[in-house]
């Protein structure tokens, strides 16, 4: 049986892992290779690296970091942050990434996703969506936002997820900007709405604070994978504790 995946997410800047609360007070939290090895030993199913300072100058540093990590852990690596063109994807895959996450660039150039899926395969393309609840005359809907949830785009997030799935994205990394940083749990109605609307895999992100939240994201939210950063970084729970909890709830996980 296919296992639900537990994915620790590491924010990186200039090739180093950083920790921060709501992108404030960002501190250097160390070596990406050491972090990757730690999560591998705990039984993580894959790793996600997001370059939060993605800039043209820091690209080579990021590629080098991906190569270093890929040399040390034999698990799937997803890398995102500042991916704008097919060449960026090619460079990341060449450096050792298995999957590349496209965020803002997909909103401005949807064809990038289609072209990338055709060229590199759906299996390598993840589209990241930052969604936020907005009120309307029908009670409200979720909208895609950019710039860390500050800029609205007017694009309906569920419809956008469907379009990206149809364009060949293999996975949608779905972050609720309302839930992100709250530790009050994933946005279950949002996760469920996207999971029910698309064929691609759904990774729930944003808001996890307890192991119960993980279980909710996978069961009520119908996500295929859950992503979390702070609860793993700050050592609140290990991946192994998480998986044992989920297994006890009857959720299929890989207990290696």
């Amino acid at each position, binding site marked *: 049986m*296919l296992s639900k995946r537990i994915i620790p997410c590491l924010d990186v800047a200039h090739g180093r892992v950083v920790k921060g609360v709501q992108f404030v007070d960002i501190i250097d939290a160390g070596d990406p290779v050491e972090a990757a090895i730690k999560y591998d030993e705990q039984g993580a199913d894959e790793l996600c690296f997001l370059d939060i300072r993605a800039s043209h100058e820091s690209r080579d540093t990021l590629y080098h970091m991906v190569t270093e990590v890929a040399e040390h852990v*034999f*698990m799937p690596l997803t890398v995102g942050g500042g991916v704008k063109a097919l060449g960026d994807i090619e460079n990341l895959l060449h450096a050792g990434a298995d999957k590349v996450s496209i965020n803002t660039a997909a909103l401005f150039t949807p064809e990038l996703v289609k072209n990338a899926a055709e060229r590199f*395969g759906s*299996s390598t393309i993840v589209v990241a969506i930052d969604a936020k609840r907005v009120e309307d005359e029908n009670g409200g809907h979720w909208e895609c936002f950019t710039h860390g949830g500050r800029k609205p785009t007017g694009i309906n997030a569920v419809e956008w997820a469907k379009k990206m799935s149809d364009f060949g994205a293999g*996975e949608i990394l779905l972050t609720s900007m309302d839930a992100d940083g709250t530790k009050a749990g994933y946005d279950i109605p949002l996760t469920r709405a996207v999971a029910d609307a698309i*064929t691609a895999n759904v990774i729930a992100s944003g808001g996890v604070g307890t192991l119960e939240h993980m279980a909710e994201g996978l069961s009520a939210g119908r996500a295929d994978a859950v992503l979390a950063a702070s609860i793993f970084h700050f050592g609140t729970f290990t991946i192994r504790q998480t998986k044992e909890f989920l297994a006890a709830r009857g959720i299929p996980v890989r207990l*290696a």
Partner: protein
Amino acid sequence: MKPLEVTLIDYGMGNLLSVRRAMEHCGATVTVTAEVDAILTAPRVVLPGVGAFADGMAELRTLGLDATVRQVAAKGTPLLGICLGMQMLLDESEEFGITDGLGLIPGRVVPVPRISTQGKPQRIPHIGWNELVVPPQGCVDWVGTVLHEVRPNDAVYFVHSFMACPSNPAHRIADCLYGGHPIAAAIGKGNVFGCQFHPEKSGEIGLKVLMSFLSQ
């Protein structure tokens, strides 16, 4: 003792770095090449690959390597196809129209079923860690295959939208189940092996698979 040498075919499709690092971790000396002579004289050959079937076959043909891979198989050299590399071992694929494969293992490549045996829609691609099981009418045990050190229910990492259907069930070494449907996870015919999963991304279990191939 024979040194653990392996040659990876570089035809521009796939994450060669990961396969190379995993093989080196197993103690192998790795050569990455597209040169016909180097491939024909190699003690073991890996055909990796990520992407579309037609593109993969076109690249092999452009480099004249389709014939080379067939020669490698014919002379008894251990050959391992990974993911797309495994799918290309078969006769043909239905991905974007019918495309001829290498014809080393009889059968066809078809889409992963979109609906589970319970009638529910399922996710495409099939992504994640799934357990290896013994196929009902397949290979009776894994001794001597690339799964020599692997046990039923060990999990490995998959990411694919198409799957191989060998026409002879005896060529199925291991399956995994997706929505109740069996998917060929490892196939083999004599010295030719294929893994739909990524051994280079499957942690300790994956390294055991590569180690068993290096012992062939």
